[in-house]
């Protein structure tokens, strides 16, 4: 399973109908479960590993993990977007626990917690 939403960290972006991870997935693979108020990767076998969901998550609640056939889970890679939105820092931990950080210039745009959908019959979104 390439990206995993950590249910302990995900707060469903409060009462957002379309949290950022749901909106930013280019394959429409993530959904929010309104019973648990948490998002999850519904169609895990269709994931492209492109990571917009992880970058857009305000709680940093989504973990990137290779499919097991690509290699064991002992390594990890997580991005962190700086407050100034001009830098992204990736933390890489290899299979031996060795940690490396990469700070890269970027220009990350703000992603709102929710968004009105064009053409929605009854636009009742509340954030």
């Amino acid at each position, binding site marked *: 399973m390439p990206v995993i939403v950590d249910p302990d960290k995900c707060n469903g972006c409060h009462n957002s109908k379309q949290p950022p991870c749901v909106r*930013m997935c280019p394959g429409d693979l993530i959904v929010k479960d309104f019973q648990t108020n948490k998002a999850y990767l519904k169609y895990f076998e269709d*994931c*492209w590993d492109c990571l917009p969901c992880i970058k857009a998550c305000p709680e940093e609640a989504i973990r990137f993990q290779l499919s097991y056939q690509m290699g064991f889970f002992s390594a990890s890679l997580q991005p962190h977007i700086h407050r100034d939105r001009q830098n992204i820092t990736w933390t890489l931990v290899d299979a031996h626990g060795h940690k490396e950080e990469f700070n890269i210039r*970027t220009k990350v745009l703000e992603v709102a917690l929710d968004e009105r*959908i064009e053409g929605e019959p009854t636009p009742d979104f509340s954030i």
Partner: protein
Amino acid sequence: MERPDQQSIQRITHDTDILIIGGGTSGCLAATEIKEKYPHLSVTIVEKAHVDRSGCLAAGMNAINAYLNPGETPESFVKYVRYDSCGLIREDLVQSMAELFEYSVKKVEGWGLPILCDESGNYAPRGRWNIKINGESLKPIIAKAARDSGAKIHNWVVVTDLLMSGERCAGAVGFSLRHNTFYTFRAKATIVATGGAAGLYKPNNAYDAQHKTWYSPFNNGAGYAMGIRAGAEMTSFEMRYVALRTKDAIAPTGTLALGVNAPLVNSKGERFMQTRYAHLGGDGAPTPYRAYGPIQEVKAGRGPCYLDTTHITDEQSRQLKMAYLDMYPSQVLYWAANDIDPARHPVEVQTTEPYIVGGHCQGGYWVDIDRQSTVPGLYAAGDVAGGAPFKFVSGCWAEGILAARHAGKEVQSMALPEVDHLQVETAYQRCFDPLFNHGKVKYGVKPYDMEVRMQKIMEEYAGGTSQNYEMNEERLQLARKYMDQLPGQFDQLVVADMHDLMRAHEVMDRVVVGQVLIEHLMARKETRWPSYQTRTDYPERDDLNWLKFVNTRRDRSSGKIEVLFRPYQQLVPGDRYHPGAKPHPKPN
């Protein structure tokens, strides 16, 4: 989303001057250009995902791969691309996009894209035609510009068919993934910019990594399919793109080959491109040979093959990882998980499933210099447009801009074309059939089941990876026979929600594209692009008979695919099999 019922589907008709199908790289640039040059025109983008992160650019980008570095000209670019594509391209198209590289790159830089510069303030080159960027957020930057331009954006609307008014394209229809809505978009001009097609052949990986493809698995060739159904002429599908990529992760290798000058080596450490393909340019040979070479090494028992990075320093290794983080982060995690350090270990490579991508190769709509297709009122830009390989991100921008300028001019004093009601009803039926009507079928077929069936046929008979991309007349005939059975089974496709309805349309589109691809592969009786198009029964290149384009057109009523040939025109003088003089020596 719960299973929608027929009654719950609302219909929205939206009229616009110019409709853009696909809010990717070229679609967004087309929108901004129209609004800039013709602010009074209404522009509508229809995108099946969310424009902020949709299409090929979802993960980001680390270079602009087509740019005229100091000293280069549109003509020198044409010479190189012609060489790289084995002597056959639409030179008019390639030249016209090169003329807009500077304009489009400056534009996107102005929107905030960080481009790396060298000490003298020039853009930092990577190889002859690339410049380095920090493009992790390239797509949201472009999407914001499209939004700010005043274009109306419909996210999560999947376009299923074009609308026609007589012989003229008059818009398109689609359905929403988010609310139960069927859309009719009526337009004076339509620009299709849906990208290329992945998923026609068996993918490199299986199960939960089946979409660990290089090309976006969500670009299913919808734009080709809707054009084919509307009778638009397509060109050069047979120039499939078989990419040389890193093992398993399937990440682009230009970052290694151009970024740190890593040569190809086989398992014996031999630089086989230099020894066996020296006459074609060695490591700088045309791109098809850089896939063909390693395949032959593996066949001959000298695999696996690598891009040898072991000469680089630890600092360079770090830089390399940073370059991948901007474009393809999973490569870095793959190395970490598998104990691979490119400074110490050469990077293993493999070749991909064949894709149809008009931006790397030249399969796509047959267009004129203004990017008008053969259907009046319908334009094509980016990976969906044919004849102009080596587009990459900047060529896609240029094509969006060219289409926009002409479409904007064309619709100035035009009324909205009439669309008859019956046509919309037929499109509505086709759109929702898998959701409503096919439900009556007792044992349905899932979209994924049909996808696997299609991929199996294409893989085994039409030159998939496991066949070393080879094919002959007899196998192609079987491919045609079995692929031709699939449309008759579309009425067995059964889905329960809008997401799966999208998957159903994706596979139906892929089948249509696959059928046309087979006709192209059968028609070209030579081998022009080894590995992209390897005909074992016609193994040689044959300029005498085949220096021309293979085109197809599907008859709108009978559905029969007709093959046509279009002449090649040399506009830039010089040896077509020579890359042309380099104003600057290549870094070694």
